[in-house]
Structure formats: structure tokens, C-alpha cells
């Protein structure tokens, strides 16, 4: 069993109103960042877990996302990285 740090990004599903993202977008426009399109505010989780290999660690975290960490109705997730400790 090897220890891994698995990073996950969870963001509101595209097309659903994201009030935090919209507020940040408006603030960036006010600051003059006119080229900014949409901003999506989500969560970044780092999960330390043991697994046989990196693929197993990622698969395990995908299951965690499906069951608890992300809401399948309103959020999307992506594995941002799997690092051996």
C-alpha cells in the first residue's frame, strides 16, 4: 500500500447560475480585466489516501466524488493530480 495525495476540483455545472462566480467576474471587470469571460468558483480538495497504485488511488477518489464530495445534480469534478507521497 502506497500513500498518495489526490487533488480534486469540484465546480458548479456549466449553465447553472453561479452567483459567486458572477460576483467575482463583475469585480474583475471593474478592475479592468475586460477579457475575462466567466469565472467559476468551486472547491479544491486534497485527499491523502493509501492505494496499490496511482490508478487505484484515482479510482477510489472518483467513487468518493460520486458518493459524497460532489453533487451529481449540480456539480462536475475533475481529478487535478495524483502525487505519490
Amino acid at each position: 500500500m502506497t500513500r498518495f495525495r489526490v487533488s480534486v476540483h469540484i465546480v458548479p455545472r456549466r449553465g447553472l447560475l453561479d452567483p459567486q462566480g458572477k460576483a467575482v467576474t463583475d469585480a474583475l471587470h471593474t478592475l479592468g480585466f475586460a477579457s475575462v469571460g466567466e469565472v467559476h468558483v468551486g472547491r479544491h480538495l486534497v485527499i491523502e489516501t493509501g492505494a496499490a497504485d496511482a490508478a487505484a488511488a484515482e479510482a477510489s477518489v472518483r467513487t468518493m466524488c460520486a458518493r459524497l464530495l460532489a453533487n451529481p445534480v449540480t456539480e462536475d469534478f475533475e481529478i487535478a493530480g495524483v502525487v505519490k507521497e
Partner: protein
Amino acid sequence: MKVGIVSFPGSNCEDDAFYAVVDQLGEEAVKLWHKDHDLQCSDVIILPGGFAYGDYLRAGAIARFSPIMREVAEHANKGGIVLGICNGFQIACEAGLLPGALLRNDVGYRSMPVTIRVEHANTAFTSAAKVGDCLTMPIAHGEGRFAGSEDLLDQLENDAQVLFRYVDASGAPTVDANPNGAMRNIAGICNAARNVIGLMPHPERAVDPLLGSKDGLVLFESLLVAAHA
């Protein structure tokens, strides 16, 4: 009728629900601890408002895995009445007992009176009301914007599962009357079997003129009709 009110760590409306059932309806109520596996023969289960588990991750996301939720789901699957109010609605959605999801409000936390219109009276929580009744009661939430796919919303409308809508003083579901950006002004729904009901406003805080409104009482009186049917 015996009502079981579940206390999660962070729940804060158990006493309000208890007051509505015991002091105003004159029925029996018992508080149930979330770590227990015993509904104590309750006819109706209330998942009350509050901030279970600090609303960490998403409101209701962690509470849905509390031990007692296994029995609550069994109760619901057998046709037992489950009522989710505010945080309880969020928990019921996270648990899959109700469809859709409750997202962060479009304008932040709101604590204010709202008016909701009864859309259907054929459930255990609306049977004593009349379709079109406009009820005033408080909301107090930061994550109450009901959301789902357009297909889901159409299906909920077609199957008469949208029970309450935010409306203005004339009973119209306007943008201005919508306190949180909920899709189609939806304030409360039921499941397909019509025995699990969830709403964001707090009827248990509107059961006595001293509280500013007793419009919520008719919803609790509906439970009595159902329990004695």
C-alpha cells in the same frame, strides 16, 4: 399522531417543530438523535431546519449519512410521511428522498417573511389547505435556490410535485417575489409517491399570532388529516 423530530449536530429548529406539533396541534412529538437507529414508532418524521454539520461541503451532504437516515429512508420507502424543512429539505435532496438540489442563493443569505402559494392539496402536508392559498411565513437560509434540469422541472410540474411557489401579494410568482433565485419560483416539492415533502420556508415558525403569522398551522393540520385517514 406521533411525530419524530430528528436532531443532527447543528440542527436548531427542533424546538420550533416540537412547539408546532405539541403546543399548537396538541399531538405527541419526540426528538430523535441522529446517531440512533430507532424512529420510536413515529408516524411522521420531521427533518428540521438548522446547519447540520456546519453545512460543510454542501448543506445536507454529510447529515444524509447520519445513522438514523437509514431508518428514515426505510420509513419513506414504506410510504411513511417525511417532512424536510429548510436544512431538512436540503438533507432530503442530498439523500435522494427528493429530486433536485438546493444551491447557494443568488443574493446571499436571506432572513425575511415570504409568501408562498399552495399549488396542490393532495399531499399529507397540504390537504387541509386549498389550492391557491397564499401563506406568509419566514425563510432563513443561504442555500435555498431550488435547481434541476429543465427535464426534471417539467416532470415535477406535470406530475403535480411542485407544492409551493414564492409569490407576491397578489399571488403571482414574480421575479421580485423570489427570495433566492429558485428555478420557476419553487419553494417546496414532494416525491413521486407524495409522502416525502420538502420546503425552504419555515411553517413551524408561523403557527401562532405571537410569531407574526399562523399561516403555517394549516400545513401541520394536514398531517393530522393524513395520520387519521
